[in-house]
């Protein structure tokens, strides 16, 4: 603890927090990939469950540690970075929620849901891959946010959210039996929330604090 004072640091306080936030997002992506694979490709649920739960524990602990470190940052550095610090408290909560939603997807697999052999399996795999790649891009935005690329990213996230919402609506009006439709509707619903949170992560990194979690200059609430 004392030696850390004398150690030459490579990064400032917020840079260190950013690095840990990026690794937290990587953990959330890992959980998402495993949980989705358990539902879509028939992977062994017991094998992935322990990994997902321990990753989620790590995400939760990191969130709590980062909250403390953000308070330390404001205490030591003063209020210059207060906007960013408040943004980070929102951001790490969004990442923590992605971890929780991955656990929800795991719950589906643990209930015996297996969508690997359905007619829409290729489509489901495509969406899963898109979301996973978006998480990787979101991590890049945390360390270097380009406003134009961030806008393009948010537009893609909005389009995907709209697509998922359409699929949920289709499920509600589907003639197919419940055991086929309900798991899909629930999965789409979790994915929609994950996409909203990933979009929120990028918004937090690039938008003014008062507009975060909203679209159209604060008019449209993207949380539901």
């Amino acid at each position, binding site marked *: *603890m*004392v030696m*850390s*004072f*004398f*150690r030459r*640091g490579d990064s*400032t*306080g*917020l840079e*260190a927090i*950013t690095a840990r936030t990026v690794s937290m997002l990587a953990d959330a992506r890992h959980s998402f990939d495993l949980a989705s694979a358990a539902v879509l490709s028939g992977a062994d649920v017991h094998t992935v469950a322990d990994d997902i739960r321990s990753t989620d524990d790590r995400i939760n602990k990191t969130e709590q*540690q980062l*909250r*403390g*470190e953000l*308070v*330390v*940052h*404001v*205490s*030591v*550095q003063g209020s*210059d*970075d207060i*906007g*960013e610090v408040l*943004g*980070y408290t929102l951001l790490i909560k969004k990442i923590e929620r992605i971890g929780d939603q991955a656990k929800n997807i795991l719950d589906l697999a643990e209930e015996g849901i297996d969508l690997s052999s359905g007619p829409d399996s290729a489509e489901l795999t495509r969406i899963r891959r898109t979301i996973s790649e978006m998480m990787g891009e979101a991590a890049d935005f*945390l360390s270097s*946010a380009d406003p134009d690329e961030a806008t393009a990213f948010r537009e893609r996230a909005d389009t995907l959210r709209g697509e998922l919402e359409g699929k949920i609506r289709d499920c509600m009006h589907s003639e197919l039996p419940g055991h086929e439709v309900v798991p899909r509707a629930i999965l789409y619903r979790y994915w929609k929330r994950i996409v909203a949170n990933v979009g929120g992560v990028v918004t*937090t*990194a*690039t938008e003014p604090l008062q507009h975060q979690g909203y679209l159209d200059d604060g008019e449209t609430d993207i949380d539901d």
Partner: protein
Amino acid sequence: MNDATLAPGEREMHWGLRSLLVLTLVYVFLVGVSLLESGVKVMGADTQQRLFEGVSNPVAGLFVGILGTVLVQSSSASTSVIVGIVASGALGVDDAVPMIMGANIGTTVTNTLVSLGSIRQSEEFKRAFAAATVHDFFNVIAVAILLPVELITGWLSGTAEWISEQLVGSAGVEFDSPIKKWVKEPVGWIKDIVADLGAETNVLGTTMVLIGLMVVLLALTFITKNMRKLVADRIERSLNAMLGKGGGTVAILLGIVITVAVQSSSITTSIMVPLAAAGVVTIHNIFPVTLGANVGTTITALLAALAAANSNSLTVGLVHTLFNVSAIVILYPIAKIREIPIRLAQGLAEIAVARQALAVAYVVTVFIVVPLVGVAIFR
């Protein structure tokens, strides 16, 4: 995240340039201490006696130390001024010791004031007020034990004098300090300028003392401000390391290191108060850091003693260090004794949360009313 912490047009100073600025400010600070010393020396012997006869009573000296420190919100500044006056010969080591102890109590007002910032949120305020006043209670208990011991046995001043003798020679003599030589020239220039304006003896001395006071206060303010900027990332890193590991002896060392770096115990303790308010650290984590801050802040008076180059001023600086180290040795190692200031602070915080006006009354009474009444009675 967006990198927009600097205002438009504002540029962050290079660390090398800032380090150079700090070194220059330390030199200016030492010139200020030397100016104080020279100013008091220039005054007539009668004036010196009249000025300092009030603090020959140790209790009055203690309260003057509290009041002076509350006024400038820095024990580093007040103890440096005391060192300068002792170097002039107008104030003896025995009279200065209670003032140094008072400065230790007075400096705790800053973080207590910081804790009042969260007075509207009761749970936060309870944690913040307890974290701040544990410093008050520790210092008051330390004085209650060590002042009588000092008055009866002269243990602190005797030990400090012995160390001082080992370092620079016999009591009361001027020692050969290169720093004294460096600061002599500008002090001479200022004295000549003021004398050329027609000032003599008391007027000349008073003017030099006032300029010295101003220089010491301003230099310390800017040293603290710039050092904080220089080491903020290091402080942040070490506090983050503490979050995971708690308190103990290592936290005392951390308090010493941070305070020596920023030259202000108030900065160290005031950083800790919002952390306690937010519940990020507990009062048990903060307490040892606070004790370390008490020791770390004594470096400034020792630095001032180098400019004064009088063995008595070094003795006073060492008394400050010895007092705070002794207080830790007496009050920290045994868990039951260590808990006393913590329990008192938590109890006071419970009362303060129930009646918030009492928290304000506590600050006014302990740091202003009692010292004022004390000085009026005992001087």
